[in-house]
Structures are given as structure tokens and as C-alpha cells.
């Protein structure tokens, strides 16, 4: 269906500041009926902020939002929903203790009334999931669903309200390539049913595949608006990044001896999060191993085992040829394992500690930072100052509370903290999540440098492009099981996607595999 001319949504000169940072600088945008507009930009370009303003979760400093010709009152999600705008957030907004049906109907009816007939509601949800190919059981508890299913619930939440405009914030980030294709099929059905869609992404091929028009944001500004028919990936990439940011060059890996070996490791499931199931993996010097997979498939358990947070219930960890009897975070650090945690805000740093205190978080207990139980703060402060200089952490000084730093600078401090001691093994769990392109390249170049220096690097990421770009060997994790290792360039995204979906483990005859796990 060709986009009609009726404008359903108009953002007019939206400006939003957070302190000194201008997140949105007079951004305008319009959406016509039956159209898919992609909002393209790197992390930190202001896409999510703009959509949160449209959806009433932030109030703009100036500018207005018009839906079907009516101006929306600012800062009111309810008004946006009532006007027919639905949003699928990047971080799902679902309550785990409630059923799918309860999550979908939450807030739909007036709070002060009786619940409408459950059978009727259930029927409507089933009809929607059939029509839009969003298969999910209305009576299942959300806590027990996979990531893909949760996203379907998010979309159903919007469709159930009969929205006319659907906003999807990085919807493919958590999906396998096949699931992403299914999502696109759903979106096409939605368009055919007269919906209009704003699709937020930083992945060019997706933008080219699904959208009619692209609006490019960079550093909070709208830098371009083009019809997809009139452009190509290279042009879009240039628009998105401004000056061409160079991805690091990758030299050929020269794997050395095995530094850490996981042998038939299993860990118990915790609630609905799978543990590991008979996983064997060798981390070798001078090699980056990439762990691909949909989130919630055992990555956390593997990271915990390698990082010392968890002792496996079965199997053996062999470090430098010695089987480990005891394992703890402190032991891991002392054994030369650099750990970059998945969530730098919650686990990587202490928000109200200053940079000095955060820099010595893992090393405070040993010289030179302390002796016989007493701290040496001047040594600690000097170390922090060195890290700040060497790793280019932009901050007012080592006495700043880390809460005030941007994600990129926070991550640089963590990198400095763990890499400064020349670790043998680097565990990088989602190391670039949420970072802008400059910081991404910086982190990647540091990981490559560590590899070239002879460290074994385990890179865990949900971003398949990142995994494929950086890893010398790729393993896929699904349902707590680990695939064989695939050499760089031996697999297409679609082939990896099959493994990510948990197929392929039982029919071990796919192309390009190096049998490894037994």
C-alpha cells in the first residue's frame, strides 16, 4: 500500500535539554498514514528522547506534538495512548508476576470499575495474535516467556488499544535474524491495516528493508530526511556518523595456549533464567571468542562462572592448567581476569562513590592501595588520575561522583580499572551497550589491543554485527547449551540465527562447523 497523504503525526521543533546536554535540538518530523518512517542515528543521537517526548514520558522544553491534527498535552502518556499512539520500548515494560492478558489489559479500563469479561478479552487477544502473527498464550505468566514472546506481548499491548501509530524503539536488538524477519512481516500486516509506524534503529539494512522514509539524527539534531528509494546504505551511514568514523582494523589472530578451560560445566536454572547445560569452552591466548545469542539464554550464567560470581554445580574450571577448587570474584581478579560487567550502572560502579573509590573497587584490598587494613588514599588517587589520563575519561577530576559521568566515560574508567593490570583473560559482557559510536570504537580497539597483547577475550553480546565483526571464533548460546565454535567468516547471520533459535544442536551437520564440544 502506497503511503497516503494524510499526516497522522507531526512533531514540531522539539527541543529538550538535560542539564547542559541538548538531547533534541528543534527536531521536526511528520508521519503519513500507512507509512514507515525510520528514525536513524547512533546511540546518544536523541532518538529515544524524542520518542519519549512524543509518548509523554518527558516534557519538551519547547515544541509541540500533534496527532491527527490535535495537539497533545505535554508529559501525559495517557493522552498519547488515547490519541492512538502506542510505543514498544527497548527495555520491555512488563510485570513478570502478571499474565500476558493482565499485562495487556493493565490500564485499559477505568481503574474504578469491575474487570470486563475475561473470556471476551482473551478472545480479542487471540484474534489479534492470529491476525498479526504474534503467537503467544494469553494466560501464560510473563515471567516465563522468552524475549521474543515478550516483545510480541509489547506489540499486542499497543494493538489491543487499537492504536493508529506504533513506535518501535530498537525492536530487533533482542531478536534473532529470523525473529526480526517475522517482526517485519507483522509490521507489514499492520501497515496493511492502516497503521503508521515509526521505527527506531541504528542498523542500516533494517532501515532499508522496512521503511519508506528515513529521518537521520546526529548529536540531537535532525541532519537529513530522505526517501529510502533515493538513497543507499553508504549514503545513510555517512549521514548518520558525520565524518566517517573508522572502525578498528583487525589483524589476524594468533591463538596461543589455553588459559581458562570450562569442562562440561552446568549450573542450575534460576527461576526462568536458564543456567548452563554441559558447556565446554577453551579461552585461548591471543583470541577473541564471541558469544552470540538472544538475551536470557545462559549468557549471564556463563559470565558469572568465568567472572567468579558463581561456582558451577557440575563440571570443572581449569585455570592455567590447574583445576579450581574455590572460585570467587576476588579470586578471579587475582587470577588476572578482567571483568567488564553487563550493567555498568548497577554492577560495574557505585554511583555515589567518586572516581577514585570506583577505580580501586577491585584492588582496594591489596598494595599499594591499602596495607594491613588501612587505606592509602594518596596512592589510590594517583592511580585514578593515571587511569583518567590514559583512558581519556572526560570528567572534572578524580573526586567527582561517578553518577555524573556519561555512559561512555564510565565504561572507559571500568576499562582502565580492569585492563591496567595487563590481564590474561578479558570477560567483556555487553561492553558497548548504549554507547555512542566514538566510545564503541574505543572499547573495541581496547579489546583488540588486549588480544594482540596475548590476552584471551570472551566477548558476550546480543548484537550479532558486533560479534561477527570482532570475534575470531563464534559460539552461539541457546537454552544454556553452547554451539561448536565457528571460525571468523564461516557463518552467515541467518545460519547463526538458526542456532540462536535453539535449532541445530540436535542435527549437528550444518556447514562450516568445527566439532568442538562433545
Amino acid at each position: 500500500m502506497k503511503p497516503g497523504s494524510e499526516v497522522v503525526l507531526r512533531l514540531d521543533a522539539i527541543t529538550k535539554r538535560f542539564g547542559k546536554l541538548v538531547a533534541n535540538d528543534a527536531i521536526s518530523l511528520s508521519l503519513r498514514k500507512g507509512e514507515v518512517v525510520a528514525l536513524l542515528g547512533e546511540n546518544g543521537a536523541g532518538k529515544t528522547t524524542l520518542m519519549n517526548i512524543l509518548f509523554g514520558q518527558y516534557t519538551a522544553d519547547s515544541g509541540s506534538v500533534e496527532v491527527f491534527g490535535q495537539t497533545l498535552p505535554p508529559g501525559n502518556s495517557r493522552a498519547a495512548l488515547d490519541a492512538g499512539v502506542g510505543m514498544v520500548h527497548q527495555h520491555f515494560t512488563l510485570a513478570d508476576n502478571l499474565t500476558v492478558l493482565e499485562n495487556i489489559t493493565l490500564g485499559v479500563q477505568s481503574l474504578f470499575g469491575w474487570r470486563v469479561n475475561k473470556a471476551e478479552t482473551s478472545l480479542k487477544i487471540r484474534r489479534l495474535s492470529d491476525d498479526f502473527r504474534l503467537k503467544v498464550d494469553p494466560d501464560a505468566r510473563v515471567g516465563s516467556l522468552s524475549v521474543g514472546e515478550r516483545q510480541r506481548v509489547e506489540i499486542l499491548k499497543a494493538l489491543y488499544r487499537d492504536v493508529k501509530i506504533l513506535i518501535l524503539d530498537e525492536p530487533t536488538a533482542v531478536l534473532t535474524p529470523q525473529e526480526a524477519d517475522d517482526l517485519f512481516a507483522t509490521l507489514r500486516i499492520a501497515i496493511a491495516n492502516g497503521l503508521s509506524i515509526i521505527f527506531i534503529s541504528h542498523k542500516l539494512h533494517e532501515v532499508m528493508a522496512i521503511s519508506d522514509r528515513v529521518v537521520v539524527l546526529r548529536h540531537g539534531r535532525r541532519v537529513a530526511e530522505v526517501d529510502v528509494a533515493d538513497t543507499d546504505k553508504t549514503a545513510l551511514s555517512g549521514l548518520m556518523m558525520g565524518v566517517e568514523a573508522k572502525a578498528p582494523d583487525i589483524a589476524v589472530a594468533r591463538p596461543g595456549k589455553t588459559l581458562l578451560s570450562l569442562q562440561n560445566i552446568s549450573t542450575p536454572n534460576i527461576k526462568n533464567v536458564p543456567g548452563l547445560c554441559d558447556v565446554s569452552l577453551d579461552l585461548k591466548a591471543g583470541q577473541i571468542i564471541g558469544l552470540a545469542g538472544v538475551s536470557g539464554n545462559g549468557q549471564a550464567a556463563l559470565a558469572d562462572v568465568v567472572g567468579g560470581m558463581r561456582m558451577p554445580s557440575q563440571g570443572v574450571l581449569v585455570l592455567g592448567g590447574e583445576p579450581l577448587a574455590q572460585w570467587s570474584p576476588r579470586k578471579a581478579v587475582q587470577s588476572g581476569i578482567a571483568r567488564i560487567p553487563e550493567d555498568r550502572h548497577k554492577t560495574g560502579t557505585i554511583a555515589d562513590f567518586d572516581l577514585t573509590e570506583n577505580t580501586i573497587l577491585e584492588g582496594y584490598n591489596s598494595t599499594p592501595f591499602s596495607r594491613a587494613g588501612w587505606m592509602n588514599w594518596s596512592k589510590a588517587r594517583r592511580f585514578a588520575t593515571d587511569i583518567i589520563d590514559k583512558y581519556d575519561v572526560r570528567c572534572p577530576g578524580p573526586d567527582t561522583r561517578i553518577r555524573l559521568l556519561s555512559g561512555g566515560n564510565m565504561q572507559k574508567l571500568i576499562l582502565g580499572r580492569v585492563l591496567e593490570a595487563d590481564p590474561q583473560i578479558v570477560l567483556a559482557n555487553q561492553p558497548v551497550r548504549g554507547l555512542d559510536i566514538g566510545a564503541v570504537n574505543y572499547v573495541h580497539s581496547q579489546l583488540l589491543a588486549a588480544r594482540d597483547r596475548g590476552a584471551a577475550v570472551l566477548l558476550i553480546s546480543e548484537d550479532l554485527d558486533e560479534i561477527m565483526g570482532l570475534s575470531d571464533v563464534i559460539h552461539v548460546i541457546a537454552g544454556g547449551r553452547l554451539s561448536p565454535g565457528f571460525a571468523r567468516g564461516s557463518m552467515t547471520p541467518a545460519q547463526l540465527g538458526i542456532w540462536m533459535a535453539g535449532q541445530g544442536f540436535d542435527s549437528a551437520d550444518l556447514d562450516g562447523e568445527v566439532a568442538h564440544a562433545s
Partner: protein
Amino acid sequence: MEILDILISASFWAAAIRIATPLILATMGELICERAGVLNLGIEGIMVAGAFAGWMAVYSGTGLWVGVAVAMVVGMGFGLLHSLLTVPFGLSQHVVGLGVTLLATSSTYYAYRLALPQVTSPPKIAAFQPYEIPILSDIPLLGQALFSQTPFTYLAFALVAATSIMLYRTPLGLAVRAAGESPAAVAAQGLSVTAIRMGAVIVGSGFMAMGGAFLTMSAFDSFFFEMVNGRGWICIALVVFGSWKPGKALLGAVLFAAFDALQIRVQQTSLGADIPYQIFLMAPYILSIVALVLVSRRAEVPAALMVPFNKGER
């Protein structure tokens, strides 16, 4: 043998239900707060304030039910204060809760001293009297225990049913349960987490105050300092014991009260004569701790309990 005789006597169970009533009311109040994600440690003080307010209202000439309403309104006032500080400002629920308990207790005592400066022993009011429900109260044992109580007790049981229906059968309850589990989900559906949480704390505090009022208006007929005596803290334990479910919490309160009634009676038997009475008084508190130890490991705590929600946090 004596203990067995006690356990099968109707008067024992009637006493247990009477002792349970204030706990049931306040436990429901705390449960509503916690289900929405707010720990309300103001409970002890709010019960004190409710006990005084209801009794004082009746003493000043209002009807009994008006007294109950006055207690509830006073409790809701303290709930408003608590929720204002803990919800939009996200201040420590521990500190604010203890602060509210201190404020409610001290302002109650202050008001008492101002209202009755001269008295040495507090005056009595005409409290709620037992009302035997026709037919039902004739059932052996059960009728005496359950259906010969004061109307205030019947109200407490009705409130448990109402709380349960509200939580599990209405859109409002759905929103409350979601607010305690994932406030982001509530906000994304266009509802105000702040309003839901504040509402839950305010209403819950009203229930707590009613629990206090039961002490002065039904269990006894007068107000004494220290009369709440840690009941609020026990209710917090009961919420955990009841896994945040109204029915289970009710059961816990009745069991607890039965134990309390039992220790009172055993004190008066020959067995009790040799044991210091303090041991009996300690028993309910110890029981609460034991119960917590038994259930805490596998308790399904609301995921967002004590986690403040700041809309659009970056």
C-alpha cells in the same frame, strides 16, 4: 490435658478472633502498601494515632462508627505524609517510616495530654458490644468463636474479602500489583505510578489506624500509652508470612492470635504458675521471628518493593 481443654473451648477461639482483629486490619493495610511497592514502617505509630483518634472522637460525643471513620481519616493523613516523602521524592522508606511512627506516636501523646490534662486514669467510652448473628451464632464452637463478635470484627473480615477482591478482580488491583512489580509497566500504560502508590499507602494507612481503633473501641474501652505494644511490627512479619496474599495473611493473623490467646490461658494453669510470666509474653514475638525464618527464603517478594520510581529516569 489442660491445653487440650483450652483448645476445644469456644471462648478460647472467640478470644483468638478478638485478638486477631486489630492485626488483621493493620496487616491488610500494610499488605496493600507493600503490594504497591512501599514498605510502611509508620504502621506502629499510625495504629497508636488511630487508637487515640477513634476513642477521643467517641469520648467527645460522636457515634461509634463516626469514631472509626475519624481514626481512618487520621491514619490516612499520616499515610499522605509518608507517601509524599517516599513516592514522589523517593526517600528511604525505612527512615521515613520510622519518622512517621515517631511523629504519630508523639503527636498522639501530645494531643492526649492537651485534651485530658488533669486525668490520672483515662476515661472509658461505651465501646462496641458483641452482636450475635442470628442462626450462624448457634453453630457449635464456630458460632461462638466467629459469629458472636463485635461488628468491628465483622468489618475486619469484610475488609479482607474486599481487599482480596480488589487486588485480584478489579482493574485497580491489577494496577496496584503491577506497581509493586514493575512500575515502568504501569507508566507505559498511561497510568500514574505516583498516584497508585500514594493511594495505596494512604488507604493502607487508614486500615492500620482502624486496627489501632479496634483496641480502644472494641477490645478495650479506653486509651493507654504503650497499648499498641509492637503489634504494628508483628503485622509486618505477618505480611511476609502470608506471602503478600490477603487470605494467607488472615490465616497467619488468626494463628498468631490463637497462640497469643493460648499463652494467656496457659499462664493461668498450674503449668504456667512455675514459669515467669515474661516467658509467655515473649512467646508471640519469638514465634513471629521463627515464622519469618521459615518463610523468608522462598517468599515471593514484590519485585519493586522499596524501589522508588522516577519517571523517565536516565
